C-alpha cells in the first residue's frame, strides 16, 4: 500500500501498481505509460476494482471515483488526471 510514501509522484505509484497487476497476468508492457489499458483488453474490470481501492487508499480520496466508463481511464495519464481532479495527492 502506498500510503507511507505519499511524497512519491502519483504517476510513479500508478506505474508501480499497474506493473504489479500486469505481472500477475504474466504480461510485460514496455510502453506502459502510453499503453491502452482497458480498451486493449490488457486489464479487466477485476483489476479496475482493485485500482479504485488502490487510488482511494493511496491518494487520500474519499469520494467515489467515476470509473463507470473504463474507456475514459484507459491510460495512465487519464487515471492520473482523474486522481488530481478528485484532489488526490
Amino acid at each position, binding site marked *: 500500500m502506498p500510503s507511507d510514501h505519499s511524497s512519491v509522484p502519483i504517476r510513479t505509484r500508478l506505474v508501480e501498481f499497474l506493473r504489479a497487476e500486469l505481472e*500477475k497476468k504474466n504480461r510485460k508492457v514496455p510502453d506502459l505509460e502510453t499503453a491502452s489499458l482497458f480498451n486493449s483488453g490488457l486489464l*479487466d474490470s477485476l483489476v479496475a476494482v*482493485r485500482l479504485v*481501492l488502490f487510488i482511494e*487508499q493511496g491518494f487520500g480520496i474519499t469520494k*467515489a*471515483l467515476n470509473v463507470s466508463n473504463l474507456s475514459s481511464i484507459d491510460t495512465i495519464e487519464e487515471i492520473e488526471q482523474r486522481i488530481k481532479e478528485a484532489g488526490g495527492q
Partner: protein
Amino acid sequence: MVSNALEGVNEFSSALWQDIEACLARTVKSGGPRIAVFDADGTLWDDDAGEAFFLWQIANCGFQFPSDPWVYYHEWKKRDPHGAYGWLAQISKGIPIDTVRGWAETCFASHSPWPVFGSIRRLVERLQQAGFEIYIVTASVKWAVEPAARHLLGIPANRVLGIETEIVDGRVTDRVLAPITYRQGKADALLRATSGVKPVFAAGNTLGDIALLETAVDFKLMIQSQSAIVPAHAGLAADEKRLREHGRPLGWRLHAFRS
C-alpha cells in the same frame, strides 16, 4: 479445479494450521455436524466479485443506468448499504436468470488470474477432505460469486448465499429476497440454509461479518486482506480494522494476508 493462487501475500503460519487441525480433530471426535462458512470478497479472494461483475455489466450489457452508475452505487452504499447491495441484483430485472448466470461465467472467465488466496484454497480443500459442508455467505450478488466458488473452490451454487431477487418465469425481478446477506442477514441466511445448525468454523474480513463469525461454535477466523498502514478514511481497510477491534478482545484468531 483451476490453479489460480494469488502470490505475494502472507500465507497461514504453521501455528494457525495446527490450531485448525486441532479444531478438525475436535469436530471429528465430537461426531457433530461439519459445517464451515466463509465470507467471499476479501476473505476467499483479494477482490470484490460483485463489483467486478457490476463493472463488467456496465460495459457489456447495455443497461439503462444513471449517468455514472459506479459513483451512484458507491454514494448509495455509504448511506444505505442494504439498498445498494440489492440494487446490484435488481439491475438485471427482466433478464432470464440463465442469461445472467451466463454473463457471470463470461465475466469470471475474462478475469485471469482470479486472485484467490492460496492458504484459503488449501483450507477449503482440507475442510472438504474432512467431510465439511462449506458455505459462502456474501453481500455480493449471488450470481456473481457462483462461478469463482465452483471453479476455484469446488463449492456448488446452492451453497453460495448472497444477494438475489425473486425469479419469476425464469426471469430476474426487482424483488430482493430476504434476508439481505449483510451483517445480521449473513447469519440469518446461513442458519436458514443449515436449518439452524451452527457452523464449526467461520471466516470473514469486515465488520459486516461479525454476526456471521459469531455463529461459529469453535473457530472464528478474522482475515486482514488490506495493509494495516492504509489511512483511516479508507473504507475497506477501516471496515477490516473494526472487525479486528471487535474480535481481538474475544480471542478470535487473525490472519493478515498483508501486514
